[in-house]
Structure formats: structure tokens, C-alpha cells
């Protein structure tokens, strides 16, 4: 019999998870207690953008129903609570919506129906919100903006927190949940609520550790004449580090989710009386690296005054419209006396807090008569730009390209002063290192695990 699974909370996480469940053959009930959102979804309009999402949504439309009425939950085999959890500027989560949905769901479904919290909550949350029969579970999600469908369809493993995990095997799970998860063909790890809640945070902290080390060493490369892009492949071949490690240099950590987990660890450590100094250093390093483009822009200006600066990319990374903690926003705030000409494939220029922004119609248009170019998001579209075309449009020669989306040799031939993260400061314009090794990889900011 086909499972009937409900997802409550139709924001980024809920929508992507619901579509993935439908793609895996379940009948999916999408619930959101706001009729406008439900009407939007029924009409096929999705409020978020993710690669493959539109296609999969359309393909599975027949297996998905939409409702703003909690009574539909009573007939479901399994209910996921999956709204996005907002965070404030300090990285603190606001879980009031999760609590409210949990109450409404609990009132609407029979006591034996398993309810799974998919939204991220802090250690202790699940145990402090008990359900009858212990039928409350916390499932770790590792959504990545821009890769959400890939992650939802092909997870590496499932981590499930239970009130009492017994021996940690999937047999501890109720049949509908076990059946659904086993359909993905990946390991299922059952553990105590608190362990699962902290496991989610631990994943992001480990990613932050790798990123912080990479960013620290990339900056050192700039100072001692080394080339971080030459070092990265060597590290990836070390099994202890690994081929998928987060060791590309970037402009700190953005997107909001890793920052949230770092803030959580700092807060929890203070409460528990444990040391989180190293985590505080990650945060500090992230803020410091975020401003790399600004420092480089001024340092390479040669004392010249800027009139117009072209900024390509506003999103915090490619393939998303999210600008949460995007370094482009911070850069724009620091360029108040100068005009900014900007273009992003998804984000409107109005996202920049700046009094003198000229929205451009294309990347090349943004470069017209600019004294310097800064490429803040490594969109694929920008990788296809020809440096010779840029040189013709730009008034100045300075190109700040943290992620190396442009070919360095072609930039040099076009007479551009091309500045790249992790490259020697003094000689970067004259070096001829082949960066093909990067081009197939994502030199974007930290891919953000929600």
C-alpha cells in the first residue's frame, strides 16, 4: 500500500522534502495554514527556486494534494513538521512556529501516528515536547541551498532522534517511518533525541572548521607567495581530509545556517560551562574574510579615487536568490561614496542597501565605465565572460575575482589587474598558473547546510 505522508510548513525545506517524497512514490499531503500559499501551490507557482524543483513538482503533481486544513492529517500514515526556522542577526533560531505547528498537528492526528520534526531545533527541544506513546521523532535534514533537490532525493544517510533508540537500529522506528526512509536506500542511524539534535549542529561545525582552516591558509598564501589552488588538490587526495572536504577558499560563511549552528554551540557551551573559544574564532574569521574584497579593492586602488564600481553577484552563492549574510551586501554598505553598477541573475539590485545603485541589464552592461569590477558570486554565467570584453567596457583595470571565475591568463592578456583569493598578493597579475583544476569545482562560498 502506498504511504500517505504529510508535510506541514510549505517553505523551502517543506516544499523540497515533499516533492522528494512524492518522487519516491509516496502520496503527499502538503499543509500550510495560510490559504494564499496553498492557492499558489495548487496553481503550480512555487515561491522558491532550486535546480530541478519545477520539473519534479510538475512530474509528481498527481501524487500531491494541498490543504490549509489540519483535519486532512488524520488520514496520513506519517506527518513531518518542516517549516524553515528563521534566525536573527545573532544566529538565534525562533522555534515558536515549530512549537505552534506541533501543537496543531498533535491535536489533529491519532496518538499512534508518527510525527517527525524535520525543522532544526536545539538539543533538548524534542524531549521537552513529548507526545503520547513516544511517537515523536526528530530527523536531521541537511538541505543545501542550490542543491536542495539533489540532497533530498539522494541523502547520504538518515539520522533519526528517538525518545529511546534501543539498540540504534531502524527497527526502533515505527513501520511507516522505517518503510519511507528505507526506500531511499541509504543507512539509517537512530539515536537519542539530544544526540540527533546535536549531530545536525556538529555537521555544520565540522564544515565551518574546514572552511576556517582553508580561509586562514588561503590568506597566508597571499602573504608568503603560495597558491592555495595548488594546495587544495593535494589535500583532497589525503584520505583523512577527503575529496568532498570544504576547503575551497571563500568570503567567510554565509547563508545563515552554519552561522546559526556556530551561535548555538557558543550559547550551549556557555550554559554547560564548556569551552567554545575555537568556535568563536570561526565566527571572527568568517567576519574578517567577508571583507576580503573590500580590503583588496582599496589596497589595489593605487590611491586612485573610484567613481563607479561594478559588482557582479548579490546572492550569497550561485543558484539561489538567498542573500542572507551575503558579502555583497556588506561590500555595498562600505562603498557609500561611490556609484555601484550591479547585476545578479536572480537577485534585484534593490537588495543592495546603497543610495547610488545603477541596476544593469547584464554582466557586461554593469561593467560599462566602471573603475573596478568585483565578482562577488561565482555564477556560471560570469564564468563565460571574456576578459577582453570586460577590458573594453571597464574604465579601470582592476578586477577583484575572489573565486577565480575568470581565466587568469586571459585577464593578463587583456591588461587587467586580476585579484584572486589565495594567490600571492604582489605577483598575482604576472603568474601563469593553470586554474583549470578549479573550474569544474565550486569555488563559491560555503555551501550552506540548513
Amino acid at each position, binding site marked *: 500500500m502506498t504511504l500517505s505522508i504529510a508535510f506541514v510548513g510549505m517553505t523551502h525545506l517543506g516544499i523540497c522534502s515533499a516533492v522528494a517524497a512524492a518522487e519516491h512514490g509516496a502520496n503527499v499531503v502538503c499543509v500550510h495554514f495560510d490559504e494564499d500559499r496553498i492557492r499558489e501551490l495548487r496553481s503550480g507557482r512555487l515561491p522558491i527556486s532550486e535546480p530541478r524543483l519545477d520539473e519534479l513538482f510538475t512530474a509528481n503533481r498527481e501524487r500531491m494534494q494541498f490543504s490549509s486544513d489540519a483535519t486532512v492529517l488524520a488520514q496520513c500514515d506519517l506527518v513531518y513538521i518542516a517549516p524553515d526556522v528563521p534566525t536573527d542577526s545573532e544566529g538565534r533560531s525562533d522555534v515558536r512556529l515549530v512549537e505552534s505547528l506541533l501543537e496543531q498537528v498533535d491535536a489533529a492526528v491519532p496518538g499512534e501516528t508518527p510525527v517527525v520534526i524535520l525543522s532544526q531545533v536545539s538539543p533538548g527541544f524534542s524531549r521537552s515536547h513529548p507526545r503520547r506513546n513516544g511517537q515523536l521523532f526528530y530527523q536531521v535534514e541537511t538541505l543545501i541551498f542550490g542543491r536542495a533537490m539533489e540532497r533530498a532525493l539522494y541523502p547520504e544517510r538518515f539520522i533519526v532522534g528517538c525518545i529511546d533508540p534501543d539498540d540504534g537500529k531502524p527497527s526502533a522506528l515505527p513501520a511507516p517511518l522505517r518503510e519511507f526512509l528505507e526506500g531511499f536506500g541509504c543507512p539509517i542511524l537512530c539515536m537519542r533525541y539530544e544526540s540527533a539534535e546535536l549531530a545536525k549542529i556538529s555537521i555544520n561545525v565540522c564544515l565551518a572548521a574546514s572552511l576556517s582552516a582553508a580561509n586562514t591558509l588561503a590568506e597566508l598564501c597571499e602573504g608568503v607567495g603560495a597558491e592555495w589552488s595548488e594546495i587544495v588538490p593535494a589535500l583532497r587526495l589525503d584520505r583523512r581530509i577527503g575529496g568532498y572536504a570544504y576547503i575551497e577558499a571563500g568570503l567567510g560563511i554565509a547563508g545563515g545556517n552554519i552561522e546559526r549552528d556556530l551561535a548555538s554551540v557558543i550559547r550551549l557551551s556557555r550554559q554547560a560551562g564548556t569551552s567554545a573559544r575555537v568556535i568563536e574564532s570561526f565566527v571572527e574569521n568568517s567576519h574578517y574574510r567577508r*571583507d576580503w574584497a573590500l580590503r583588496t579593492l*582599496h*589596497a589595489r*586602488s593605487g590611491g586612485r579615487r573610484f567613481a563607479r564600481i561594478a559588482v557582479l553577484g548579490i546572492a550569497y552563492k550561485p543558484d539561489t536568490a538567498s542573500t542572507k549574510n551575503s558579502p555583497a551586501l556588506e561590500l555595498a554598505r562600505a562603498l557609500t561614496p561611490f556609484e555601484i553598477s550591479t547585476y545578479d541573475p536572480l537577485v534585484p539590485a534593490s537588495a543592495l542597501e546603497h543610495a547610488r545603485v545603477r541596476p544593469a541589464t547584464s554582466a557586461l552592461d554593469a561593467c560599462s565605465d566602471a573603475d573596478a569590477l568585483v565578482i562577488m558570486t561565482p555564477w556560471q554565467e560570469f564564468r563565460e565572460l571574456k576578459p577582453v570584453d570586460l577590458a573594453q567596457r571597464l574604465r579601470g583595470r582592476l578586477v577583484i575575482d575572489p573565486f577565480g571565475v575568470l581565466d587568469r591568463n586571459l585577464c593578463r592578456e587583456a591588461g587587467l589587474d586580476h585579484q584572486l583569493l589565495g594567490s600571492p598578493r604582489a605577483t598575482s597579475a604576472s603568474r601563469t598558473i593553470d586554474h583549470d583544476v578549479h573550474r569544474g569545482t565550486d569555488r563559491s562560498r560555503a555551501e550552506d547546510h540548513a
Partner: protein
Amino acid sequence: MEHLNSTAENPLRTVVLGASGFVGKSLSSRLGAAGAPVLPLSSKEIDLCKASAGEELRLRLRDGDALVFVSAIAPCKTPASLIQNLAMARAVCVAAAEVELAQVVYISSDAVYRDGVNPVSESSRADSDSLHGVMHRAREVMLSTTVRAPLAVLRPSLLYGAADPHNGYGPNRFRRQAARGEKIVLFGEGEEQRDHVLVDDVAEVIYRVLARRSLGTLNIATGRSPSFREVAQIVAALDPSSGPIEATPRKLPIVHRHFDITEMLKTFPDFRYTSIEDGLVKSRADSSDR
């Protein structure tokens, strides 16, 4: 740092405490060039160490004044001078509490940061273990806890310029040694890297802080830290009469200081520091001991 004035405008009047000093003179000159009214005060007018100094200062202040506190007994190397410096700050606190000032600007020092912290930024912990650093930090705290007006705390790195009355190790001493045809003597090989700021740039930053009525903490440093040997080589190249550069046996471990000047770039994006090369040319041109 935050600007209370959206555009630059001269303060109604700026009272400069320590106006006869190296920075005070330069600032008074900058304010004068901008047509900004200045009341320069030095120890001749008010001895801030005296018990009555607070009241004396209060009588000279008017509502709406901006007050720049740049006077200090420096370097502060003894407990006695620490107490004197704190007494000076007490006098300023007493006076500032009685007047509706538009702004208070305290010229502190990068000595508030412990040696070996790199790169130093405004968020670095100000936990110096030197008396001089502790003195400045204590004054900062005294002002921040008692002054009601917007407070700007500026922490300059090492200063140089033609009129520097001190002859400490660095650009000023090197320039004078070169002018006299003497050897330029380095400690060790002159490996230590330091950020040297031309006094004119310090005056310019203070002026901008006054004109924008800024509040918060800002380091004044160029973001470039050449070694003392590099500075000596620039000086020697500028002065044909210079003797050779001479190393001496090292007595102390090497400690570098670099600055992260991101906050300055954000606070005054269109400000450019004078390079050490240009600054030394200017210092030499302005100097009477060429």
C-alpha cells in the same frame, strides 16, 4: 563606527586639550584650514593634573562644543605617571559631566592592545600588560562610563612627522640621524614590522570624526607594516648625507604589529593614507633639521 552627521560639517567650536603637542598642533592647524573655530588649550592654560582642573576646564567649555582630549604624560612608564594621567582624565570627566558637549574625541593609542596580537582590529581585546596601554585603556573606560556626549575613541599606531618632539626608535630618529650624516642604527637587523602613520593623516582622521560627529572606536593605521630596516632604507635613499645602516646585537625578541584596517575603510571609504615613502619625503621637506 557610526556617523551622527550624514554629511561633513564643522563643529561649532572644537576645544583641543593638549594643543601644544605633536598631534594637538597638527589638529589645530587642520581645523583652522577648514575654517572651524578652535580653542587650543595646553598645560599652560590648564594643568589637568591639578585637583581644581575639572572646574577650570568646565568654565572654559560651552554647550555645543566638541572636545578633543589628546593630552597625556607620555610615555607612561611609572606608577606615578599612571596616576597623573588618570588624574587628567578625571578632570575631563568632571568637566564633561557639567556641559552639554556635542562630542568628545579621545586620542588613545594602539598600546591598549597586547604585543603580538596580529592583525589588530577594533575587535581585538584591549588587554595590554604595559603601563602605557593600561593608562590609555583606563582613560577610555573612565570616559565611556561618565561622558554623556557621543564619544569617539581613536587609537593611532606609531606616529611620525617633522615636528615630532620625541626621538624614539623609528622614522623620526632615522631621519635625524641621516640628516646629521650619522649611521642609522637598528635594533638587531631591524626586522620588526610596524605600521607608521604620518601625523597629518591622524589630524585628518580626527577632523573627519569631528565633521561627521562619529562615535565608536577606530584604529588609525595604514594597514601596511614595513620593517624598521625598510624604513631606514627609505630614509637613507632620500638623504644623500646619510651614513650607513648599522645592525646591533638583538636584545629583545622580535614582535611584529599589523593592522586590519577594514573598519577604517568602512568608516571613511574615500580616505587614503599617505604612504610611508611619501610621508618621509614630506617629513624631510617640512623639517628644520635637514
